[in-house]
């Protein structure tokens, strides 16, 4: 029987694996870059005075109050209109990293602010320099406190990475959508995709809640 649609077969596994790999790689890039930038911005926000904070805060606020999908389309058409279009992976990584940074900076800021000033005074009175205080006291204590929140943001980035498909990046959901339109077997393919995300997200979110409980007591 000749049909317009060809069913799912093992030869599609290459395409699916490419999608999986692309999802993983863009999530890792966004989490790593977003964490580093968020660490810097969060530290600056915890340190700086109110005026600087309001300025920083309003920029970050825009990143958090405009849907990611609109940011992606805007950025990629903007660089295109300026005459140097970027590859979907590059444009997607930039937008997703900045988006991650906006959330991470709040997480780290609250972490740094959770270290009490008297602890810093104590460190200084023991003869530590300013940088030693930051490196040995504020970073380890502040970062430990926010680990569960950090994990939560990282997991939401993995899920949000699906949206990069809108600018043509072949991540898992986009490959699956293409397979669906060819095979007309939406349920099988989508369940597989759902299981993939679930397997990554479920254990980590439980681990985060476990750490949170352990630290609370």
């Amino acid at each position, binding site marked *: 029987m000749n049909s317009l649609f060809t069913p799912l077969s093992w030869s599609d596994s290459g395409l699916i694996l490419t999608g999986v790999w692309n999802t993983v790689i863009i999530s890792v890039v966004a989490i790593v870059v977003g964490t580093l930038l968020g660490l810097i911005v969060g530290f600056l926000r915890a340190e700086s005075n109110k005026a600087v904070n309001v300025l920083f805060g309003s920029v970050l606020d*825009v990143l958090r*109050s*405009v*849907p*990611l*999908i*609109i*940011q992606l*389309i*805007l950025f990629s*058409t*903007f660089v295109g*209109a*300026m*005459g140097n279009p970027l590859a979907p992976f590059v444009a997607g990584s930039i937008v997703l990293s900045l988006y991650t940074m906006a959330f991470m900076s709040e997480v780290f800021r609250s972490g740094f602010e959770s270290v009490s000033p008297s602890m810093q005074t104590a460190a200084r009175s023991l003869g530590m320099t300013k940088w030693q205080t930051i490196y040995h006291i504020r970073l380890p204590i502040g970062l430990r406190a926010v680990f569960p929140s950090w994990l939560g943001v990282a*997991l939401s980035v993995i*899920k*949000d990475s*699906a*949206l990069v*498909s*809108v600018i043509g990046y072949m991540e898992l*959901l986009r490959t*699956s*959508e293409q397979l*669906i339109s060819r095979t007309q*077997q*939406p*349920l099988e393919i*989508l*369940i597989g*995709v*759902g299981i993939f*995300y*679930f397997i990554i*997200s*479920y254990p980590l*979110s439980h681990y985060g809640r476990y750490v949170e409980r352990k630290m609370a007591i």
Partner: protein
Amino acid sequence: MDYEFHWNVVFQNMPQLLNGAFVTLHVSVLAMLLGVVIAILLAIAKMNNTKFFSQVATVWVEIARNTPALFQIYMAYFGLGAFGIHLSPYLAVLSALVFINAGYLTETFRGGFQSIPSTQYSASKSLGMTSIQSYRYIILPQMLRRIYHPMTNQFVWSILMSSLGILVGMSELSGTTQRLQSLSFRTLEFFIVAAVMYFIITKLVLFGSSLLARRLFKGEI
């Protein structure tokens, strides 16, 4: 910079964009209301001793929290087709948002309920209150205070996530923007205006929610 902005076409189409914004608000409000109702039921089910009910609630919550919103929307739009259920883009986005909202809010409600010590209930009983009175005057007001901010965040999240309607051809704000820009090729202008409109909507919602909080809780939150 050799790009020329043409804003005229955007202003001509403003009524359509505003209409899209209205659909965005509409779908998120509905998704929130239905989500809250289901979440209350799921939270009760999760704290229930009957294993079946609590397991159903757990499965719902875990799937909603651990898979992407776009996956849920595809599932509602393409996946349900395998069962012969063909949802319109609006219904697909709405049902996905309700599913996710319910999943997240269940945990919020359960956490809020469990954060009220049971001694409060015993104390109000010993003051001669009936069960209903102690819930109405003691337990629920305190609980509402604790879940108010997470609920506001969830609502803002639904507004932002309803923008995924663009991918299934729904005519909310971003879907309308997409359709209009494809007619006029003023992609940048249209999406800038859409971004501004989303920003204004979320700010208005947050402002309204803080006004309401001030009235409800009289400053003590």
